[in-house]
């Protein structure tokens, strides 16, 4: 983003067009959801976030079974690729296996 701004400053004649380009690329929850689902087709994905840069995502997938939390989150970050660095300022992420999600909905009685 910084380099893009530097670029704009250097070629002020293109500022209007460039800003429009940046605006078009603001993320929305549906875009994030479909990017995650492309990588994890079996996943249930919920994404909320209205400001274009801060989001919360819940991802439930059988692909997470047996993986550490770090690996689970890395799979989601990989699905988002460079956008995670450049366009998404903050993503609060929660990953669950289907079994964990089931337990949350119907907690076992101890």
């Amino acid at each position, binding site marked *: 983003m910084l380099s893009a701004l530097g670029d704009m400053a250097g070629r002020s004649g293109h500022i209007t067009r460039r800003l429009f380009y940046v605006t078009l690329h603001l993320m929305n929850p549906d875009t994030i959801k479909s990017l995650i689902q492309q990588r994890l087709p079996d996943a249930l994905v919920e994404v909320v976030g209205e400001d274009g840069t801060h989001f919360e995502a819940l991802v439930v997938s059988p692909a997470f079974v047996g993986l550490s*939390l*770090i690996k689970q*989150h*890395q799979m989601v*970050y990989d699905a988002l690729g460079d956008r*995670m*660095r450049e366009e998404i300022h*903050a*993503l*609060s*992420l*929660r990953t669950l296996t289907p079994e964990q999600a089931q337990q949350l909905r119907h907690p076992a009685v101890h």
Partner: protein
Amino acid sequence: MATIQELIQEQVQKHPIVLYMKGNPRAPQCGFSARAVQLLQQSGVKELFTVDVLADPQIRDGIKQYSNWPTIPQLYIQGEFVGGSDIMSDLYQQGELQKLVDSAQAASAS
């Protein structure tokens, strides 16, 4: 002349508990970093080594490569990458963060 990756490795191995964050514990510059510091304090951390990534762009980029993790904050305990603030929250709620902190502090005291 040490590379950034070598410098990071030295930091996480020299100090038992290291948090790469935005700002410092007294003045965090981001809600996620503030949350991470709070969780560590609640977990009984006595000695926390923090690195302000906003003060050094090379560390800010380098730490993301070191862990293959795109976001800040990042917690390292006994040289191992533990996760970001979401994973820290999950671990804290399970009582696991406290255990990691306890064992790191016991190891460094002996």
